[in-house]
């Protein structure tokens, strides 16, 4: 019999099932009651849905990788190089004011302007694709991917990937993919997974070639431009060279031949190296000193207009710093009685793995230097020593702990001291974004002490905020005046001390075009290039061949003498080195590494470096 025809739940009397039926009835009742009473729903919680962007293998033909962030030459060449390995690539242009505005609108307040500029530059480009070229948002999200290095480390810019996601979401490109170098797993990619962006050695080599080619071209152009006789000629030739290199990278033809072609073009730019130019070493925050656009108010160009010769920082040097960081962090932890965990701890490494990691870094350091030289020599970039990272670290250490990271770490301080001690520049200019944490917040504070300890240094620290260019220029000009006077004085004193006149030197150069060549670099004595040239040629003007030969012989004898005097010590040191456990350990690690490399199994050893390099500028937009 049915007790309640409206209510099926109570009709059953089989065993304990009716209890479940009552529970179900109560549940329904509860829902209705909750509604009646107006009880609040549980809070919703936010999670970021954009954390794992994927690019699939089958998308490779249809997607376009967007890149940007380094010097104009490098960005352009990266585009060519990656096209050469089979990707559709688009360089989206140097970040400019409009990019900054977009970055500020869609970014968090209180960010630094490299973040605003780079993030805004991407947003600006996407908005242009949508609003000007008429692509739908869906199309843009489907067909374009921004490819960048994931930064790491303790400054604002180190966390800028967060900012990409926020800005993309807020500007209406929710779901647009920003693919990070590390997320793709570095060389582990080569295991054959079907991924869209395959970071295999071919990809790497293409990238490194583009960066190196860009580096050497920039370095040589900054050497020639201040002295060019015909205004604008260097830039025209550099544009030619960029196209030549681009073609070679895209076609994967011989890059060294292309560099040689560039050399010929560069060698034909007439220069007047007797102009007293103030040598300005540009240091500071990586992006601010690297970009060549609105991001630093076209600083490099401005300095040249004001009578300066720029000594820029190369991407290769930055990579060397990354290598140094891994090497040092490993070294200081190796001898702990117990290993720590964490990002830098060695708890997961066997003694041999630690040694191999150190060997790897030695190899990376040498490899980078060798590669740089291999690119520098054919294009005619000679006597361009890359900085010795240990030396920079050592001279900075009393002022700035080598353990402090973020931005350039101790390098700013080290480089200022180095420039003063070795007379590398008349002026050291440190450019950084407004409120840059490592640079304005720490280095500048320490530099005030360095300046008192190393008097005579002209040091100019300037911040870029993206606006107020007039004040920025004014400040730079203030220091440039002093630097120019110093350069002029150096040249005047050199003429006097060498006993030659400008006319005599000019006459000599006219007769000896080798010394007047734009590719010729006189030996470094002081900061002023013109003065160095005078020092080099003065003996050729003033002294007879016999006198010069005698002077050379005297010099050689002195060198031999000092070598002989130092020989016993050196021999003892060498013997100690050969018997040292550390040496043997090093050798054995090197051997093991070479064996593994030969067997193609060095991926694990590469991993920390790759993470570092990925974070450190190997690809556009990359820094720590």
């Amino acid at each position, binding site marked *: 019999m049915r007790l309640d025809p409206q209510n099926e739940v*109570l009709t059953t009397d089989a065993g304990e099932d009716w209890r479940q039926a009552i529970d179900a009835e109560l549940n329904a009742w509860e829902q209705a009651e909750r509604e009646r009473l107006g009880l609040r729903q549980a809070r919703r919680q936010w999670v970021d849905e954009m954390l794992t962007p994927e690019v699939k293998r089958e998308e490779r033909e249809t997607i376009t990788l967007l890149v940007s962030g380094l010097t104009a030459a490098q960005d352009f060449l990266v585009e060519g190089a990656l096209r050469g390995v089979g990707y559709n690539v688009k360089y989206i242009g140097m970040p400019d004011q409009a990019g900054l505005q977009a970055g500020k609108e869609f970014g968090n307040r209180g960010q630094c302007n490299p973040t605003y500029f780079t993030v805004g530059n991407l947003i600006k480009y996407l908005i242009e694709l949508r609003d000007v070229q008429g692509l739908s948002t869906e199309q843009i999200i489907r067909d374009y991917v921004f490819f960048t290095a994931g930064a790491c480390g303790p400054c604002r810019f180190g966390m800028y990937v*967060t900012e990409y996601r926020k800005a993309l979401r807020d*500007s209406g490109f929710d779901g647009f993919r920003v693919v990070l170098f590390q997320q793709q797993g570095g060389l582990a990619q080569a295991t054959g997974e079907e991924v869209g962006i395959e970071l295999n050695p071919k990809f790497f080599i293409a990238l490194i070639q583009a960066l190196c080619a860009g580096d050497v071209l920039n370095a040589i152009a900054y050497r020639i431009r201040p002295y060019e006789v015909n205004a604008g000629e260097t830039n025209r030739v550099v544009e030619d060279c960029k196209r030549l290199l681009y073609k070679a990278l895209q076609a994967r033809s011989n890059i060294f031949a292309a560099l040689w072609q560039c050399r010929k073009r560069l060698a034909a730019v007439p220069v007047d190296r007797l102009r007293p130019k103030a040598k300005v070493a540009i240091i500071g925050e990586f992006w601010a000193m690297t970009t060549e656009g609105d991001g630093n108010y076209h600083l490099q160009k401005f300095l040249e207009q004001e009578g300066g010769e720029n000594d820029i920082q190369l991407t290769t040097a930055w990579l060397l710093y990354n290598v140094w960081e891994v090497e040092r962090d490993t070294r200081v932890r190796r001898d702990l009685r117990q290993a720590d965990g964490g990002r830098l701890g060695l708890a997961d490494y*066997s003694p041999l793995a630690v040694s191999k990691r150190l060997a790897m870094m030695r190899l990376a350091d040498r490899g980078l230097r060798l590669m740089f030289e291999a690119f520098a020599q054919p294009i005619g970039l000679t006597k361009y020593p890359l900085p010795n990272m240990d030396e920079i670290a050592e001279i900075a250490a009393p002022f700035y702990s080598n353990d*402090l990271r973020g931005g350039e770490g101790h390098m700013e301080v080290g480089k200022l001291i180095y420039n003063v001690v070795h007379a590398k520049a008349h002026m050291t200019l440190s450019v950084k974004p407004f409120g840059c944490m490592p640079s304005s917040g720490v280095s500048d504070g320490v530099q*005030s*002490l360095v300046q008192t300890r190393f008097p005579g240094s002209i040091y100019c620290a300037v911040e870029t905020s993206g606006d107020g260019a007039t004040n920025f220029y004014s400040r730079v000009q203030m220091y440039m005046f002093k630097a120019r006077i110093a350069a002029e004085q150096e040249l005047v004193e050199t003429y006097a001390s060498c006993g030659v006149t400008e006319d005599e030197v000019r006459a000599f150069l006219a007769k000896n075009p080798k010394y007047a060549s734009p590719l010729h670099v006189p030996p470094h004595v002081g900061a002023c290039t013109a003065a160095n040239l005078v020092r080099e040629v003065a003996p050729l003007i003033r002294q007879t061949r016999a006198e010069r030969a005698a002077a050379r012989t005297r010099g050689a004898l002195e060198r031999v003498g000092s070598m002989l005097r130092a020989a016993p010590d050196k021999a003892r040191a060498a013997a100690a080195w050969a018997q040292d456990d550390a040496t043997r350990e090093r050798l054995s690690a090197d051997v093991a590494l070479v064996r593994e490399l030969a067997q193609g199994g060095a991926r694990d050893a590469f991993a920390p470096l790759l993470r570092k390099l990925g974070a450190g500028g190997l690809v556009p937009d990359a820094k720590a």
Partner: protein
Amino acid sequence: MSSSARTAPVVLGIDVGSTTVKAVALDPETLDVLWCDYQRHQTKQPEMVVEMLETIEAAFPASPRDAWRVFMTGSGALPLCAGLGAKFVQEVNAVTLAVEHKHPDVGSVIELGGQDAKIIMFQTDEDGRKTAAPSMNDKCASGTGATIDKCMIKVGLPPEAVRALVFDPSKLHHVAAKCGVFAETDIVNLVKSGIPAAEILCSLADAIVLQNLSVLTRGSTLKPRVLLLGGPNTYLPFLQACWRHRIPEIWEERNFAWPKDRPIEETVFVPDNAQYYAAFGACVYGQHEAEEIGRYRGLDGLRDYMQNGRKARLGASAGPPLVKSSDEVETFRSLYAIPRFSPPPLTAGQIVRAVIGLDGGSTSSKAVLVDEDGEIVAKAYQLSKGNPIQDAKELLTQLRDHVEGQGARLEVLGFGATGYAADVLEQCVLADVNVVETVAHMMSAVKYFGDVDVICDIGGQDIKVLFMKNGDIANFRLSNSCSAGNGMLLQAMADQFGLKVTEYAQTAFQAELSPKFSYGCAVFLDTDRVNFQKEGFSKEELLAGLAQVLPKNVWQYVVQIPRLASLGRRFVLQGGTQYNLAAVKAQVDYIKERVPDADVFVHPHTGEAGALGAAFETLRVVKRRGRSTFIGIDAAIALDYESRTDDTTTCHFCPNECKRTFIDTHRPDGSTARYIAGFSCEKGTVESHEAMLELVAERKKIARAFPNLVDYEARRAFQHFYEPEPIPHEGTPIRTYEIRKGFLGTKRVAIERPFQRATPEAQARLKRVRIGMPRVLNMYSTAPYFRHYFEALGVPKQNVVFSDETSEEMWVEGGKYGSIDPCFPSKVAQAHVHNLLFHQHQPDKGKPLNYIFFPVLTHVPSFIEGVMDKTSCPIVAGAPEVMKAAFTKEIDFFAQRGIEYVDPALTFGEPHLTARRMFECFGPRLGITEDENDHAHAEGMRALAAFEADLQEKGRAILETVESEDRMALLVVGRPYHSDPGLNHGIPEEFQVLGYPVLSVRSLPRDPEYLARYFKDEVARGQSPLDINDVWPENYSANSSQKVWAVKFATRHPNVALLDLSSFKCGHDAPVYGLIDSLVTTAGAPYAALHDIDANKPGGSIKIRVKTYAHSLKLHQEALEDEARKKRALQFSLEQKRLELLERKRAQLSQLRRDDASLDAEIERLAERLRAYAPAPVAPEPTPGLIQISERLADGRRAPASL
């Protein structure tokens, strides 16, 4: 020889500054001045230069023009150079050369310009060569002439009186000179507090001088003689006197030998003709240039530039105009112009029954008379005069006269006040309502527009943006102490051009293009304005450009929510600025561009929105209560008061010695109310020492009832609270590892060996050694470790010394050594090191410090799991190195006192490395063994763990209490060092005294079982509750990660409200602003933020935030209580239903003649429970918010909205 007879060429130096053009003509051989003049250019720089050159040409008719050379300097010179053939010379170079030429014995130069400040310090190197080290404040207008000019106007002293002022260092008040805008705000507050003008200007001068001395000198000491240059230094003797007062003070402090035998007027001096130094120096610079440089090309080029070049250059960089056609203006005007208010006519004998709402604003006060139906009867307005009682009396008189003037009779039903005057009016006229401005504005907007989503109020000094949900404030943003983008900016711009602000719009609408201002800081905007003017933009264009900045400042700078559409689509604009249609147009365009279907309304009584809100609330309160407490309009107008500012009113409770104003009002019933103005902290609110003690006791009582773990954490971290285990005896066997180097690398081998102890001498020395540490930055995260590390080694606990807590006095005293200007928490480290050096180091009392220990902490402890890293902020980590530089640069203050400064790099991410580094540092210094070091390290870590455990235990107790009592607790999310009361300005305490227990991030329980309740989703997907990778994988920063986690916790705990504290310039907080916003918004958790906290305590801004947030917390608490009641009701209803179902089942079974004993027992138990249950009646659903929201029906009538 007269100039007219001169046949030799001349060299011209022209200095184009921000307000004047100065020119000199010199003899190129001797550099003798042949002619000089200066004129104000009224922003027509090229015109003035042409005029002056014409005069010079006329003065030297016989001198060959083609041999003249021109060198120009100054901020406005660059664009003019090309036309004249002149060479541009950077100002500082020009001034340096002039000074070197004229005063070879000068050691430093201080030049205050209109827009910038410069300090040049000359140094002589080993070779006797003199080099100049210049420092320039070019970005920020802190401490420049512009600030002085603006403040002179605010103070209301005529220029002659200002020039006659005498500097009196005995009566100085706090003025923040860090930023021109902050300074202005402080000045306005001082004016309102009735501080005499002379004292205010002296305080400003002092603040500017100290700002320049501390920041611009970059920590260096000025060398005598000191030359003062620039307009303010030249024309303001009291400013000169201030330099002469402060500079020797620093020399004394730093033991610098200065010529005391010479009159100070000679040591710190202003030269004759100071205004011409830059122009003169430009000519000296010319001597260094080749002959062909700077050849004068006559005036044609410059004239051509004025006519053609200037405009042509602009086109490229300019943005669009505000309106494209006059039709657009008309259409816009018809839609948005605020209708003119005409008060309804009254008839003779009519009785007007109405309430009064009064808004005592920062610059102006308004009052409205609102009748019982909510219609406005009359309005009154006046500029604030600094005395809120007098202002109120005058406003009330206006209202009464309006009514009685028409023969009607006024019956005041109630009185409500808002704004800064509300507190005093509540006391002296017994106002019915004292409501915070934000809430008043909300009420008024809701009354007129119903269910709006966003209310944007732009007043003279601030911006308030309220986000609405269910008819109440769901969230809000207020401009910080920085006034970027408020109405004052537009007002000031109109003033610059001699326009009334009412003419702003019609002028701006005429522009055909507009310069693109960068948005943000008002001072930077002014710099932009000067630059644009130099470039030749007209006033119409500048006004248009500036109006367009306004929405950017509101939405991007203050609100920071880029996707406006996410806020809703109904926007209300109100506040006095909306009378300016140019501002409204820019706002509407901005909003519509981003939210195309937006409805943007302008409040019809835009200036009186606050007063109206107060009136509406008064209506509600009085109706509900049935009576008013107001003393009556006549009594209020007749209110008798005395205002007194003299020695007897000075507050002596702290060294600030605030000169307060007492306003005593006598109510008709004979009682007196005293209002105290002009104090900078709460201590100033009481009159006597007894009252002070009472106040303190009262606060303590509340503090005991409502614990404040932020405060507890700040104190506890530095105390001795853990007894370390004694060091093992020599020879005690210990298990450890040994490092063996071999062919295959370094191996660790486990061994057992005897414990090694230090020598008896070293052990004895440990009893005497005294170590000082600054109570600052990362020490808030790690101090328990360091204290107990040293104690475990045998250092007596009284010999482990921390600097005092941050205080304003400490900052004023010790804040002059830094060479950089980072966030305040980092900057204040110098004051702590100073405190250790000058106060904690007491050799005369037998208590010297042997070491000042300030470790570089690259990584700090963090409890978040699965993070990328646990790094500290680089500025914070690097602060010890910066301090080392600051205190050893010129004088080694440590060496001078025989103290060693020790700052090893430590990482709390890697304990073994930290132990090793501590040993490397203190092994040699204290003579301890590595075993002893490791023991002390382990004890330090245990102390740190005990500290954390204690905090969590207390936090858990609070959470469980508020949960059981349906109350709210306030979770302060900040960096650990925000627990420093000197950094958080006592804001957590403000909430504590309101009755909210305060939690800190580290006091949140981290027990996985406890957390599993709140992090159900995470646990379900196998993620640790302490993992934040689902919201922020770039979690490198330890403190930011903890902050994000704490916010996640709060969004999951219904009884926790958030208070987010962040310091000005904080680079590690910047990336998480957006994340926190997403978390909080999605969950709808109560949240308030005070970002940009800096050295100065923005009292007003804090107050309004606390009050507004208190209002929403109250609503949240009510909602919690309702929720709890409803839950109980639900429980009852469910049990009842269960009983009903069970009884029916029993009936069913009995019909089947079956028994079930367990069912019977169950029914009995349930029935018993239900009988005992007396449910509280469920209250009717309360009206959402404070105002009933209505919506417009199809027939135009309004009815309660269905929400």
